[in-house]
């Protein structure tokens, strides 16, 4: 068995296109997932059941179904109900974002609940409304505690972005598939893709470890 990476390097531009595709969907899902997660997380914390129940149902449903099933549902099933087609990017982004929203909602909820009730009382004593207390007092403290968990989510989103290849969205793994089938070099093509993902993700993982350690020391 002779390894020959030359056939992969001649296709660097294809990999580059794939890397841009991966980063593209990663950013979309990161922004949508984490911001929607905050809304849902606050909804789960609301006192009115009108917000709490839908938020809870949303979290339970999306946490308890596989992402790939959600992506395929949005890609193949949803267009039956809509008058227009859904692009691979839209389907994959919807699946990954909603799934990440459900998981990050639990992180936000846990973070907010971890703040002592005295902080709420203090804010109320100063005449702040619920929204003001949340924005000015609770969230800034809670966010600090949540950062390691949220960066972990970001890493998960990055890894999940490969699932977009199942609906033929052009990202790194999809390009790896293409290169492997054009040059009959699956070993080199898939090894290269794995190494690229490792290179992207390893610093993020190490950064999370660092955050966790720093947080443990400061708490």
């Amino acid at each position: 068995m002779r390894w020959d990476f030359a056939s992969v390097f001649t296709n660097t531009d294809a990999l580059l296109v794939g890397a841009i595709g991966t980063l593209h969907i990663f950013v979309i899902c990161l922004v949508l997932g984490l911001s929607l997660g905050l809304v849902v997380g606050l909804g789960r914390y609301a006192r009115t059941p009108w917000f709490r129940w839908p938020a809870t149902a949303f979290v339970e449903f999306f946490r308890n179904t596989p992402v790939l099933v959600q992506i395929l549902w949005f890609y193949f099933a949803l267009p039956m109900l809509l008058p227009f087609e859904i692009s691979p990017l839209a389907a994959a982004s919807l699946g990954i974002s909603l799934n990440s929203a459900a998981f990050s909602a639990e992180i936000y909820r846990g973070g907010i609940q971890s703040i002592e009730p005295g902080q709420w009382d203090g804010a109320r004593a100063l005449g702040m409304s619920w929204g003001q207390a949340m924005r000015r007092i609770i969230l800034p403290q809670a966010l600090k505690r949540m950062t390691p968990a949220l960066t972990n989510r970001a890493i998960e989103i990055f890894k999940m972005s490969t699932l977009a290849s199942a609906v033929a969205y052009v990202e790194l793994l999809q390009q790896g598939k293409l290169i492997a089938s054009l040059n009959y070099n699956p070993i080199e093509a898939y090894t290269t893709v794995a190494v690229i993902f490792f290179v992207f993700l390893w610093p993020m993982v190490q950064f999370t470890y660092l955050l966790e350690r720093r947080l443990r020391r400061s708490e």
Partner: protein
Amino acid sequence: MSYRWDFTPVVTNAPLLAEGLVNTLKVTGVSLACGLVLGLALALMRLSRHRLASWPAGFVIEVFRTTPPLVQLFWFFFALPLIVGVEMTPFLAACVTFSIQSAAFFAEVFRAGIQSIERGQWDAARAIGMTHGQALQRIILPQAVKRMIPAFMERAIELMKTTTLVATIAYADLLFAANEVSQKSFRPLETYTVVALIYFFVIFLASQFARLLELRLARSGESTVH
């Protein structure tokens, strides 16, 4: 909306979906069993004082935790057979990938659990003449495993969700059966909705069971290790 729902194709293909669900559970079960054993071995290697044991274990754990599972699966299905020269079935590739992948995660759970046991327990075991292995087996692991159960359950549920990836290499799991039924019947909406609900039902039950177990453990005074 004028779409007319028709679940009859899904109902007539129920045996196909049931077979898919059985295959999903099969991959999950095999990977879980192998992953636990391999995970314990990796954790013990990583905790070892010998670098020849701890470094390779650390390497495997880091690589499998920081690369996407789908990339791993493709590597084991398309690349590995060419290197070692054996025919790889989708089932085998899935079991190998998910066993090693979940082993990497289980190893960290084991490690955290073992490290959470107070040093005094080790000292006491040594004081009554136990070897390192005996202390681990009789004193440390029984206590550690109890603390690790919630984290294990969570990982097992994650594993079941991850097994849907095998549909991409044409193993006939539940999701693959859904692809087939929807293509055959031109009823993707009904098929994928039903399959999503089946997954939800099974995984939700597992989650509830995990939650119950966690509550029970919390009451018996054992903290959770994550």
